[in-house]
């Protein structure tokens, strides 16, 4: 049966994709893209694309999904699809066509400082449907970095899921710097075990359309969830992010930090869900999302949504949308820094709280350079 894991359920997944809503409100009048009418290039035959996986030496197993299905079927089955919930529309689409992917298995008490690096590539202008499964056993600690090298008019619909046992600690970083002609939809879902910690660090800087659902389902006590996300549509790019932390039991902690900027005619939308169930007492949740508008035509909708059914919780949310702070610009220029440079420094600094969640200095520098290019005057 496990040899059929990838092939099973495709038809019903496609049906679920067709019948599930996007989980987003109707677009505001500014919003020029309607996900409901997204034109999905359905693949005929086996989709293209490839995956390259680099794992640090040691006990971590990192391989492509087909190999995992053949050699580690029992382990794969413990995690594959487990973090996906029915409302994740685009995960069903990915599931219907998944043909390439990576499996990362971190055995019990195995701790690694060097990341597992996964690189998905599209061949030319094809559609790819990648699926990464990270499974960490009790006390294991690891970092995974996912890159998307896609160009042309590639369409990507993927899944990354993290499933852990007790007291594991997994950081998953996804710096998305794809070519601006591509369309990318990604579902990122985590199902941590008791006392485990998961961190999603995502940056959406490329693609003409980038849609992401980022979720942590906290259904064991002691879970600590971090979601750090930045995006920056420029030109005519659209970015549409939904993050959800679902506190289903108490004594769970989450922190969501989102920094978004838009320039040119770029449009961004962020919906931040924090759900605290009635029995999830002693939950602590914070949601901080800030948006920076760098041009008159740029637009960002930012919607924090807190649903709190328990009464003994600490929940914080704060949101701002605005232009660059005039007082900050004056302060910097009064020290001799010219206005354009001051604006760049402030805009780049704005993203730092998210950048610092990325796991390596080289990755952080790559992001800073990519952001720098976006704030340079055209």
């Amino acid at each position: 049966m496990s040899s059929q894991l990838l092939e099973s359920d495709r038809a019903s997944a496609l049906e679920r994709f067709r019948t599930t809503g996007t989980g987003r409100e109707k677009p505001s009048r500014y919003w020029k893209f309607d996900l409901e009418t997204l034109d999905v290039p359905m693949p005929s035959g086996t989709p293209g694309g490839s995956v390259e996986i680099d794992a640090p030496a040691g006990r971590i197993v990192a391989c492509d999904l087909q190999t995992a299905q053949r050699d580690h079927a029992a382990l794969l089955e413990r995690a594959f699809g487990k973090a996906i919930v029915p409302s994740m529309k685009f995960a069903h689409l990915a599931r219907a066509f998944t043909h390439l992917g990576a499996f990362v298995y971190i055995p019990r008490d195995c701790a690694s400082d060097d990341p597992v690096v996964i690189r998905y590539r599209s061949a030319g202008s094809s559609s790819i449907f990648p699926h990464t499964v990270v499974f960490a056993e009790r006390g294991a600690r690891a970092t995974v970095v996912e890159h998307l090298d896609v160009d042309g008019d590639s369409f990507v619909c993927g899944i990354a899921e993290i499933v852990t046992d007790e007291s594991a600690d997994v950081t998953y970083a996804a710096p998305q710097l794809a070519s601006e002609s591509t369309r990318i939809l990604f579902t990122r879902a985590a199902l941590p075990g008791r006392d485990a910690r998961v961190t999603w660090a995502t940056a959406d800087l490329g693609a003409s359309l980038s849609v992401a659902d980022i979720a942590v389902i906290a259904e064991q006590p002691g879970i600590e969830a971090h979601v750090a996300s930045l995006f920056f549509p420029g030109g005519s790019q659209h970015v549409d992010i939904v993050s959800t932390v679902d506190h289903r039991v108490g004594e769970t902690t989450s922190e969501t930090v989102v920094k978004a900027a838009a320039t040119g005619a770029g449009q961004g939308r962020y919906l931040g869900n924090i759900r605290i169930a009635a029995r999830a007492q002693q939950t602590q949740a914070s949601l901080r999302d800030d948006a920076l508008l760098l041009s008159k035509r740029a637009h960002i909708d930012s919607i924090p949504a807190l649903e709190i059914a328990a009464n003994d919780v600490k929940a914080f949310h704060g949101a701002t949308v605005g232009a660059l702070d005039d007082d900050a610009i004056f302060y910097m220029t009064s020290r001799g820094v010219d206005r354009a440079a001051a604006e760049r420094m402030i805009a780049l600094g704005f993203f730092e709280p998210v950048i610092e969640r990325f796991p390596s200095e080289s990755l952080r520098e790559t992001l800073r350079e990519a952001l720098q290019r976006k704030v340079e005057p055209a």
Partner: protein
Amino acid sequence: MSDQGLRISGLQCSVDGNEILKGIDLTVEPGKVHALMGPNGSGKSTLAFSLTGHPKYDVTAGTATLDDEDLLALPADKRARAGLFLSFQYPAAIPGVKVPNFLFAARQAVRPGELTPAKFRALLLEKMDVLGMDPSFLGRYLNDGFSGGEKKRLEMLQMAVLAPKYAILDETDSGLDVDALKDVGESVKALRASEEGKNTGFLIITHYPRILQHIEPDVVHVMIDGRIVKTGDAQLAHRIEREGYDVIREETRALV
């Protein structure tokens, strides 16, 4: 050479259409310390912001030159490059911009190409040591989460690093305890004792005379209702301490 100094003449300034400064004449000579005192709301900070080029402060008449350069024709960054520095009463917090990165950018703008990053870092550490600042400041974001005292110390550090020709300290003493006040005094003395800062002229704006126990002024001006109503030596500050502004206001009512 004859026009050296921060020279302000007939300066009038409005904010949101309200005239605040009603004709200021003041010259700070190189190497001299001028104190500008006055009650709250008299226009002292408006003078500081109008000289440094804050866009909300609309200069409607008068001139201001810095060693012959027409300040009012320049945007804020070029005024700083001409050698003007303002220590803010309420410095802006700029999250994500680290103290040394900003200070290096400012130093490079004001004194281009003088220092390599390594030499700059050494200079920064040396100046921080003089100010009794912990090296952990270097890892922090500009004024972000700083206490009032830490913000003022960072302003003094920037003054030390930029070594301006003319420094305006806008109520740098406000909200400081005795020790922090002494440190502000020490940082002014340190700049004056340095090669770069030996000719720096100071305009020290203050409500209270107590900062002047640490920095002896050469000249003291009193500003009331947008005008300088009295100018004297350090004794004037002592008089204000004893008698308050009301006596001066009474004496100069005819002027105002």
